[in-house]
């Protein structure tokens, strides 16, 4: 009972903060938009070429945009002291972190997935590919945030934290990137993306099972 | 001796650049690591001795 009220309080607070501070979701979306609109200038605007790079560009852009939100998981709380409320709670820290990542994934994942099909139009991608891409962005954002929460927890209030978080997290997201982009490519070539989706889901479940525990251990290490 | 001459040895069947480039890269890496090992050791020893003198 009290575990449920604690996790739901964490979840609700994260969404309240999202609703109250527009920049928290507007900035990642703008970043995503700008990244996606830069590439055609570099590679040219023939629609066949754009189609091929579009999937990768959009997917990497979404991952980077989600990465930018990692510091907000713990940094602000560490600064104003409310992180101590989580650390001194009688409830398991891993569950609280999971609630927090879940709320952030929901808000950010939905926002990024919602604009993904629009950006797909920039790259002349057909509707079904755009839809598959959006679905995979929706699945990839929680995975990235789960893996990233470990690094974010380790680097709470560390110097150079943001860059180092990227160095630590980005290599670990390669499977997500491979499965997500391949699923969309398969649809583009008219094949079934079932295998990719299953692997993507499996990787997400693995992250779901392990990452909150590791992030809790990480947070205890960095705040001790 | 399986090589006709030292020239043939260095030439490596026309692939000398790649073969010796590889071994050269290894040598550079190993030497660099050894230099760093020794530098770190002497820094640590200097700091340690200063510490003891005080």
């Amino acid at each position: 009972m009290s575990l449920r009220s604690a996790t739901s309080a964490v979840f609700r607070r994260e969404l309240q903060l999202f609703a109250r501070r527009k920049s928290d979701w507007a900035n990642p979306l703008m970043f995503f938009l700008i990244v996606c609109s830069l590439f055609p200038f570099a590679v040219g605007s023939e629609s066949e070429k754009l189609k091929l790079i579009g999937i990768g560009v959009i997917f990497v852009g979404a991952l980077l945009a989600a990465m930018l939100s990692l510091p907000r998981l713990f940094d602000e709380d560490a600064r104003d002291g409310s992180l101590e409320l989580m650390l001194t709670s009688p409830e398991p820290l891993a569950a609280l972190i999971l609630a927090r990542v879940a709320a952030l994934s929901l808000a950010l994942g939905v926002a990024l997935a919602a604009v993904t099909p629009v950006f797909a139009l920039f790259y002349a991608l057909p509707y079904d590919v755009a839809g598959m891409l959006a679905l995979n962005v929706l699945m990839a954002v929680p995975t990235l945030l789960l893996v990233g929460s470990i690094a974010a927890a380790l680097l709470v209030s560390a110097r150079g934290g943001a860059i180092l978080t990227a160095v630590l997290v980005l290599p670990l997201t390669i499977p997500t990137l491979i499965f997500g982009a391949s699923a969309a490519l398969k649809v583009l070539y008219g094949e079934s993306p079932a295998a990719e989706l299953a692997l993507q889901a499996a990787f997400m479940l693995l992250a779901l099972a392990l990452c909150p525990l590791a992030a809790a251990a990480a947070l205890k290490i960095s705040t001790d | 001796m399986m090589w006709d001459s030292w020239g043939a040895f260095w030439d490596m069947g026309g692939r000398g650049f790649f073969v010796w480039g590889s071994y050269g890269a290894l040598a550079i890496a190993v030497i660099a690591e050894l230099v760093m090992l020794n530098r770190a050791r002497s820094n640590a020893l200097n700091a340690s001795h200063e510490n003891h003198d005080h």
Partner: protein
Amino acid sequence: MARTESQSHDKFAGRWFWRYASPAAFFPLAGKLEKLCWVIAAVLTAVGLYIGFFVAPTDAQQGEVYRVIFIHVPAAWMAMVIYLAMAFWSGTGLVLGTRLSFMMSHALAPTGAMMAVVALVTGSLWGRPTWGTYWVWDARLTSTLILFFLYVGYMALAASFDDKKKGDRASALIALVGAINVPIIYFSVKWWNTLHQGSSVRPGSSSMAATMLTAMMVMTFAFWAYAIAAALHRLRTQVIEREREASWLKEAIK
């Protein structure tokens, strides 16, 4: 304020089987082991290179350039093995709280990163004449590259903490996270690779003459000995840095 760490903080200091987990006991032993490993590394390298260049025949398929694999394959293996060893020591450190385990882990990382770089450079130099290009997105090369990123991340993380103990445990955790991810990354890259294009010829994959294999294995053991020696050297340096005020050290390095 006197530091009495080495006596009081190793939880297991009293038990004989943990005796070597204490830096004071380990220091002289490590010194002897290090010298032995340098000698073994030097001898095996000489033997391995002799076999590799003067006994092993020319490869029918690849010509002379295959001789790069005598160092490329051992370096790639070492990059992987050292990462696993690092993760092992990190896990040991987190579970048992022994400082020496963390130090072992730190001591291995630079050598592991160096091995990854050597594997990548030699792989490219081998690939140019064989595949016609310096780089292919082959599963093995790609995962060696990612392994290099993980090494860099580990070392950067360890260096970003002013509090050594925090840095120890934080980097140990990331080493473990990386170790769980390495196989996942390897298999997903491999799977991705089969979807796109595969390279048919791989370093060391064509049928090898017995002498070629011997040269490669001798070089592998030489690399092992080298890695152990370098790690022990670094370990002893760390002991000197961290135990600056311990009295046993003043005796040991006089």
